[in-house]
């Protein structure tokens, strides 16, 4: 009798205890889901943040930051908090590759925005492709990045993880050549490039477009990145009787070239690509930059109605540097990645093949971004082929012509 009651007592106690424990653990789980314990997902950024090209690079970092803040505030992906991890590649390809490896090895990174430079991109693509990690560049314009080395004859997409929101130099160079010959009525051009993937490629495509239109290339030369004294080159340009100088490269060298060109007494404008389209160019070259021209991808961000909200947020965020050329595109690139993550990551649960799925989702993305419609074609290129010519007028870049270019 005594024995039996003990058994009953024990079992009752045990059952009660178990029930209580069970209740407790369930409560804990619930608290974790709705409270502060969200899954953290990192959007990587790779761009030059110091030194060469950093004025433009900081705009990329800022654009992504605004997009991520937006996504967190609006809770775009339930159960997920986004964070930005920005790495500095100093515009050096080898640093870009190291950064890519670092981002790939962090499981929390589900997408990367960057890099700024096409030359850096060539060293990063393979790393991302091997890890199936999506990469969207807001600014790379070298055609071979998406269409393969022989893009002029046979387009083959080399890396399925690589996308870009900027259009290619194949269009940019031609667009610039068309404007120079038909609108500016320039007939003799001197072409200079910096021997980098982007600069040399752009200069070649401009040359092709300009000669096809009927213009004449009266001289060519190359400079090294980091060079400062261009006086010998300026004398050559003056002697060639060119009425326009086309420069394929970044603002770091072109701002010195244009100053020395005008100081040397050559009153001809310098024309460049999106690498030169930076406020730093005007600040440093001062009034010697007046009348210079640059093409850039897309339409001018500050005139787009869709971008006004972005510009306001960017300025309110107190970020380092200006949104510059690619801030809007970086916002769109980051948003494309965030939207893709939203389709893959449900309730904060990251599937084991999330990276591969996100790549597929980005390929299918279609929405209206701050800098225009965002969608990618079968090569990973943007379907938005808008380009704009800007000219320095009263110390500011002023849009003089927007349009598309088809060969």
């Amino acid at each position, binding site marked *: 009798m005594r024995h039996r009651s003990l058994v009953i007592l024990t079992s009752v106690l045990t059952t009660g205890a178990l029930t209580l424990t069970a209740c407790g653990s369930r409560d804990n789980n619930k608290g974790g889901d709705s409270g502060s314990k969200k899954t953290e997902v990192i959007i990587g950024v790779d761009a030059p943040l*110091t*030194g060469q090209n*950093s*004025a433009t690079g900081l705009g990329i970092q800022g654009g992504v930051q605004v997009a991520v803040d937006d996504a967190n505030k609006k809770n775009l992906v339930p159960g997920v908090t986004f964070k930005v991890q920005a790495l500095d590649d100093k515009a050096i390809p080898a640093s870009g590759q190291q950064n890519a490896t670092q981002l790939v090895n962090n499981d929390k990174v589900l997408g990367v925005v960057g890099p700024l430079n096409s030359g850096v991109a060539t060293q990063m693509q393979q790393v991302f492709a091997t890890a199936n990690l999506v990469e969207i560049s807001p600014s790379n314009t070298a055609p071979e990045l998406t269409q393969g080395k022989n893009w002029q004859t046979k387009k083959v997409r080399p890396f399925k993880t690589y996308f870009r929101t900027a259009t290619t130099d194949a269009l940019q160079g031609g667009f610039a050549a068309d404007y120079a010959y038909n609108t500016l009525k320039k007939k003799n051009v001197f072409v*200079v490039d910096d*021997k980098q993937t982007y600069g040399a490629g752009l200069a070649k495509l401009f040359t092709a477009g300009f000669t096809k239109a009927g213009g004449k290339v009266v001289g*060519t*030369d*190359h*400079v*090294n990145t*980091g*060079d*400062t*004294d*261009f*006086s*010998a*080159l*300026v*004398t*050559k340009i*003056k*002697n060639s009787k060119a009425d326009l100088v086309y420069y394929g490269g970044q603002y*770091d060298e072109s*701002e*010195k070239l244009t*100053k*020395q060109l005008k*100081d*040397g*007494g050559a009153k001809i404008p310098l024309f460049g690509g999106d690498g030169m389209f930076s406020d*730093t160019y005007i*600040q*440093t*070259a*001062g009034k*010697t930059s007046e009348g210079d021209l640059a093409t850039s991808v897309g339409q001018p961000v500050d005139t787009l109605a869709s971008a006004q909200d972005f510009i306001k947020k960017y300025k309110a965020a107190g970020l380092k540097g200006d949104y510059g050329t690619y801030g809007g595109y970086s916002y769109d690139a980051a948003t494309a990645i965030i939207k893709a993550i939203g389709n893959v990551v449900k309730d904060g649960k990251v599937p084991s093949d999330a990276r591969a799925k996100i790549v597929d989702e980005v390929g299918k993305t279609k929405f209206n971004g701050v800098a225009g419609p965002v969608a990618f074609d079968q090569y990973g290129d943007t379907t938005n082929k808008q380009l704009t010519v800007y000219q320095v007028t009263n110390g500011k870049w002023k849009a003089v012509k927007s349009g598309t270019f088809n060969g």
Partner: protein
Amino acid sequence: MNTLPQQLANGLFLGSMYGLIAIGYTMVYGIVQLINFAHGEIFMTGGFGALTVYLYVLPDGTSMWIALPAMLIGGGLVSVLIAVGAERFAYRPLRGAPRLAPLITAIGLSLALQQAVFNWYPDAKTDRKFPQIDAGPWHLGSISISSGSLFVIIAAPVCMAALAFFVRLSRTGRAMQATAQDPDTAQLMGIDTNRIIVVAFAIGGFFAAVAAVAYGLRLGQIKYDMGFQMGLKAFTAAVLGGIGNIYGAMIGGLVLGLAETLATSYIDEIPGMQQLGGGGWSSVWAFVLLILVLLFRPQGLVGERVADRA
């Protein structure tokens, strides 16, 4: 249009800047046999010193004709202080150490100075705009000279002449010659060699600051890493002219500047050499010249007697 006179002038302008910086390398080497690799950064800090004077000391809108001397003094002061400080705290404690120790210290100091400006000078992470003389270009026959180039072409010979008189005629100058020849005997003769070494660093620093102002005026901007390339070129100029010899440094600078300019402008006009000419190759040709000179005249163009240094 015959471009040769203009190109020669371009080469002289560039070469004068190299020469001014090279003086600093050569004087320090001549006296303590130290290659002061931080000299490029002393050049850079001189530029930032001058900019500081213009931006933060002088009232806004000061005419450049008044500002320029003040900037030279300010930039010179910063460069001299840093050069002398480097000597006192980085090199002097290592005076008796093996040759490699001060060399590594110099490289470390160079990085430290670069990073210090990069981190702490306002907005120095990219190019800083340098004030400009709002005049020119002037024309002399077919040669056009910008205001910055005019500054360097006047400043370099003036500095050089002053230095030559100083070294030849003043008491300190003679003491420098004596120290360069044989520091131990010089000390026995009552020369304060430590003071002489400080003077050598100070003169080198001031000349570098003059070059930095010239650089800023010519290119319109200065940057935290501008000392690296210019320092390397100036060091090359010092070796080309014969390191240890002040006239050699200036001549080496001019020859290097001319070689770079002429290589940029004329090599690609030689049939079959299109691929090897132009601005991208100018440094290559300058170094080819250096190798050739060193092959046939290891002591450099002007050369220093090496024999009496046993």
